[in-house]
């Protein structure tokens, strides 16, 4: 009897509230555009925020609302843009060329020197706070893999030389690693542009030579060599203008410090695999540079 009373009274309460809510749901029903749901379904669903909207559903409502283009998702690329164009009932547009992230530093642990032994938290942002980081070059990659942790797609691994290696097949160009890197070494570039100056140092040539074997010394030979005048020298650093570069590779041959390189997809993965094979873990150099670097 006592159980029955308890069960019935609570069930009664529940039923009353249930009916009340049911009626309210009818009265306050909100019609949402069914296209938003459809587009959200088509989008990758990683909620990476690479489009500039809060998550995939945020982009979907922006597309339906007309404030974002159908190719607004940098991750999905052309395939997704076509599907969304289909849902929106408009002509498919040509999506922008796929962008991939590239690490613009070639100064691995064997090529660039350190100033002191850093034994703090293994995070580039933390290391940067300690007197500008252990690396002698204040522009170079610190190699603690903050970008590796930031990548939502698992496209970045630490190479055997203590520099991150980006798998350009997995990379979606969302830009998370760029935001994570305290030194702004990573840049988004069109995937077809493969010639890059792997240096971000604005220091004068003599200083660069002191701290790194493969830094850009700002000699300007590449600027003179380039047949398309696609290279400019800005503040002691050569910069390749992607629109003009046709990957001819002449600058690579002439560069005295070999800081200009041709990005090669197979190379980058070989490097990662070599790192794994050497010690069973890909981040051997990372650990070296974290604790055991002696100032030279």
């Amino acid at each position, binding site marked *: 009897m006592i159980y029955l*009373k*308890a069960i019935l*009274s609570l069930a009664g*309460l529940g039923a009353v*509230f249930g009916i*009340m*809510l049911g009626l309210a749901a009818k009265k*306050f029903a*909100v019609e949402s555009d069914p296209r938003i749901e459809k587009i959200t379904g088509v989008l990758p669903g990683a909620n990476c925020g690479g489009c500039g909207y809060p998550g995939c559903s945020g982009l979907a409502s922006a597309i339906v609302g007309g404030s974002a283009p159908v190719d607004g998702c940098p991750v999905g690329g052309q395939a997704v843009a076509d599907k969304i164009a289909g849902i929106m009932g408009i002509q498919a547009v040509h999506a922008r060329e796929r962008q991939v992230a590239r690490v613009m530093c070639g100064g691995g642990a064997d090529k660039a020197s350190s100033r002191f032994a850093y034994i703090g938290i293994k995070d580039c942002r933390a290391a940067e*706070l300690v007197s500008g980081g252990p690396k002698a070059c204040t522009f170079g990659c610190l190699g603690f893999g903050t970008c590796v942790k930031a990548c939502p797609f698992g496209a970045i691994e630490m190479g055997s030389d203590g520099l991150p290696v980006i798998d350009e097949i997995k990379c979606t160009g969302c830009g998370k690693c760029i935001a994570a890197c305290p030194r702004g070494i990573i840049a988004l570039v069109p995937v077809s542009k493969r010639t890059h100056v792997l240096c971000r140092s604005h220091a004068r040539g003599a200083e660069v030579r002191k701290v790194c074997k493969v830094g850009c010394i700002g000699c300007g030979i590449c600027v003179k060599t380039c047949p398309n005048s696609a290279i400019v020298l800005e503040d002691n650093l050569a910069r390749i203008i992607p629109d003009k570069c046709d990957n001819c590779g002449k600058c690579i041959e002439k560069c005295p410090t070999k800081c200009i390189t041709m990005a090669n997809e197979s190379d980058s993965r070989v490097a990662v695999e070599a790192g794994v094979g050497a010690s069973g873990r890909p981040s051997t150099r990372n650990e070296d540079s974290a604790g055991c670097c002696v100032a030279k």
Partner: protein
Amino acid sequence: MRELLVIFFAGVLLNNFILSRFLGICPFIGVSKRIETAAGMGMAVIFVMAVASVITWAVQYYILVPLDLGYLQTIAFILVIAALVQLVEMVILKVSPTLYQALGIYLPLITTNCAVLGVAIINIRENYDIIQTAVNGIAGAAGFTLAIILFAGIRERLDFAPIPEALKGFPLALITAGLMSIAFLGFTGFKLAALFGL
């Protein structure tokens, strides 16, 4: 009437739910980044707490006490609060989708906001009648709103202050909340009853 004023000011200042009773901290920290959303949250909580107070009072004295089911108080009250929050959620989604977006997960979380259950149980414990219950509910929620809006104002200004990296975000928010709590402790000395001539 004077007694109701005492209950009201005691609820807002002396027994402030967040800064004195330490109930409802989750939305207090979570939705206090901007004054606008904090105010929206405050309004939602005022509605839920006022209505929940009255309904739980009715449930207590018309269902639980006559049927001798006092031990079901917590679960019955939670049921009332959950249903009310659902209702508020629907209304806000209809009336102000922007506020709905801004409140995000914290809106359904009012259900588990212990301040709401707290006020319902305190009403019963203090043997308030229905008018006093309603006033106490509104006062408790007004205190919550006051605290969260003040806090959001401070946090908005802190955004521009040079803050050590390690303290940015929640650490500093918690320190700020602690200092506010100490400040509100000052109200304890008020003799409200004497102030209103009781």
